[in-house]
């Protein structure tokens, strides 16, 4: 490696200082001579670039990364050669790793929690849309830069040729495969990778360690796991963790076992989870049902086991037979999550398959029984527009006084609930305030006139489908 001295010049850059050094690459803080801004410059050792295959992989990956654009993704600027070494420059960042931020509880409010997760999910969705797999994404691949998350891990790679993994190329193959952040893969989209990445990040966020470790601990010793989990619940708002568990489980589960079918579904769950905060989450708990093997003469009996009602210290019990096929190896293919039969002869069913049709049947029957009148009422006549009527006790008011405007005699022929919209049709709109307005409660509103003049006030009512023609009032403010 060339080992650049301070103030030496590389391309259009002046070296300020060395930031990081490994046997295979070095990072420098540099200043652009013309622009005056600070960038990071990474020089890749010729040990890597002298291997044609390796050089090809590195340049191709940097190109692929450079083509991506997202506000929370590190930006690559330039690349070139310097003393037979390949270099590239990218955005300089100084922030701390997001993992550190979460673990030191600098980010602990539900607002921050939501803010960060929705942003991290946004970038995962973007990478997914670009067909970029991100199965190895970790929380420490992000830093907090100017209050925003920034995905910084630049070690992107295609499949590493096997010969680079042999002892002759000690370290080289590892560099390309094991320091990975984003796996640029122009292969059929792998939703599972993105879901897994998000589940892992969520897991790390709440301080449970890595997802893989936690699940292994869980399998070994339930009590130790619960203890660890309870310790880290403390900084979080009660109620959130139950939803987190559900999101993680759904992200890991297969689609036909209640897993997410799209990242949007996950985003919606996350959204509703954080906003509900102290309330219980609305995400359906996992319900298992087992059919006990019976003798052929008897009808099979149905035993439904529902996961216990979530409480603040409820223990996290992923299905016992949830197998994660080696998450830890980065070369492994997408982890397969399979639900196996716990005992031979026992059959596990998803209760939704029984429950949902049952509910639909009950609803249809009720509708048939009670709803004939409703159906007649709704379908038998057209939705007519409402009628607005407005009155006021006086049309002459002094400036800055309050006047009650009454629209309560407005009506809807279909007897729908009405919302009342008061506006200034003519006159200075900023000089009039209506309290309340545009709600069901605004049938009687108080208008405050801050200026003298003649104001034409209009009331329109809304029945959920149609607006009424306006009712007009003229107020003279003196």
């Amino acid at each position: 490696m060339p080992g650049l001295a301070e103030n030496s010049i590389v391309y259009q850059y002046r070296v300020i200082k060395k930031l990081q050094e490994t046997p295979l690459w070095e990072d420098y803080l540099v200043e652009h001579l013309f622009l005056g801004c600070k960038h990071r410059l990474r020089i890749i050792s010729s040990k890597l670039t002298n291997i044609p295959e390796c050089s090809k992989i590195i340049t191709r990956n940097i190109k692929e990364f450079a083509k991506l654009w997202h506000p929370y993704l590190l930006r690559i600027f330039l690349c070139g050669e310097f003393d037979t070494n390949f270099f590239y420059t990218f955005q300089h960042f100084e922030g701390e790793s997001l993992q550190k931020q979460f673990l030191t509880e600098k980010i602990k409010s539900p607002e921050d929690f939501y803010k960060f997760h929705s942003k991290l999910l946004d970038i995962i969705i973007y990478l997914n849309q670009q067909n970029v797999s991100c199965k190895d994404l970790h929380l420490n691949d992000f830093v907090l830069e100017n209050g925003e998350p920034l995905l910084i891990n630049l070690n992107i790679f295609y499949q590493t040729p096997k010969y680079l993994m042999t002892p002759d190329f000690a370290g080289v193959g590892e560099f390309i495969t094991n320091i990975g952040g984003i796996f640029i893969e122009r292969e059929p989209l792998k939703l599972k990778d993105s879901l897994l990445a998000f589940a892992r990040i969520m897991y790390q966020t709440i301080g449970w360690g890595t997802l893989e470790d936690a699940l292994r601990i869980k399998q070994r010793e339930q009590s130790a796991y619960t203890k660890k989990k309870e310790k880290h619940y403390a900084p979080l708002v009660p109620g959130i963790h139950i939803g987190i568990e559900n999101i993680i489980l759904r992200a890991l589960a297969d689609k036909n076992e209640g897993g997410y079918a799209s990242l949007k579904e996950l985003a919606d769950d996350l959204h509703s989870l954080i906003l509900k905060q102290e309330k219980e989450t609305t995400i359906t708990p996992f319900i298992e049902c087992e059919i006990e093997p019976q003798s052929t003469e008897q009808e099979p009996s149905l035993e439904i086991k529902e996961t216990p009602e979530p409480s603040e210290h409820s223990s996290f019990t992923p299905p016992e037979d949830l197998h994660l096929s080696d998450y830890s190896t980065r070369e492994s293919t997408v982890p397969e999550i399979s639900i196996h039969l716990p005992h031979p002869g026992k059959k596990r069913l998803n209760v939704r398959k029984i429950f949902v049709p049952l509910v639909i049947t009950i609803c249809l029957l009720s509708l048939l029984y009670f709803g004939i009148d409703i159906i007649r009422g709704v379908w038998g006549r057209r939705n007519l527009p409402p009628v607005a009527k407005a009155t006021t006790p006086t049309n002459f008011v002094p400036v800055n006084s309050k006047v009650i405007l009454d629209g309560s005699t407005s009506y809807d022929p279909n007897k729908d609930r009405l919302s009342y919209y008061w506006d200034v049709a003519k006159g200075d709109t900023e000089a009039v305030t209506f309290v309340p307005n545009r709600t069901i409660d605004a049938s009687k509103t108080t208008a405050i006139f801050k200026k003298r003049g003649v104001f034409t006030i209009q009331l329109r009512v809304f029945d959920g489908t149609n607006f009424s023609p306006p009712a007009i009032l003229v107020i003279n403010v003196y």
Partner: protein
Amino acid sequence: MQEQSSKYHIQEAIFTLKRYSCFEAIQRDFERPVLFNQIQLYYSDSPESLKDCEREIKRWSVLQHPNLPQSIDGWTEEKRLVFIWLAPRGVILESVIRQKKTPELHLAIEIAIQMASVLRYLHQQGLYHGSLSPNCFSLIYEKWIILLRTSLPEILNRIFEQADTGLRQKVNIEKLKRADITGWGKIMGALLTGDPYFEYKKEVNVKTPLIDAIPSSIQHKFPGVAEKFATILLKAMCSTLQPQQGYTSFDELYKDLVQLKEIYLSLNNTNS
């Protein structure tokens, strides 16, 4: 410097302004689009004006904001100054407005926040635009806003004009600040209503068209949001004509927008 120029392949002019030209180019190493900005130099240009010009470019190059193009390269040649900005290819906001592609309420709020955020950041750095219009912004992936056309071209032109004429133009910062707030309001109003000439007029009801631009079913689902959004836009739009009633800074405006987004999100959650 020939070597540096060869790293970029110029494709088409985006806009030109006296000495300043902005082209779309392809950065050959990465095969990605960039903005190639060049300033024409003359032998008669004084060293002071060149220095001022370089200082301004440096001032813009250190800026970092998700909604601003990022400076990636630059150099001086005999007859021109060149600097490269990284900005992904998007759709100019003006064409979005002309096609009357009114964004959904949540997206409109998001765009409004991003635009306000970048302008707030620039104002905090003491940089004002003064002539914002929908063709200054680009919409990326139908979600992200980038301020493509900054005030830098005008600033650089002013430097050379001042050097040529010897007259120092006075810049009224307060006026520029207000103009940016009003400009923001007008752009958002145009985006919502699909009317490129939408603007604030005294004694005319501007609020109702803004509210009506949001479908009544959405208004019903999010009671009060359309009203508040329209009030914010109106308050921004009247910043120049009626300064007492308008916003005085992007900080105030941004705060109201964030509050609006929170209301929207909480209602969205209730509805779901």
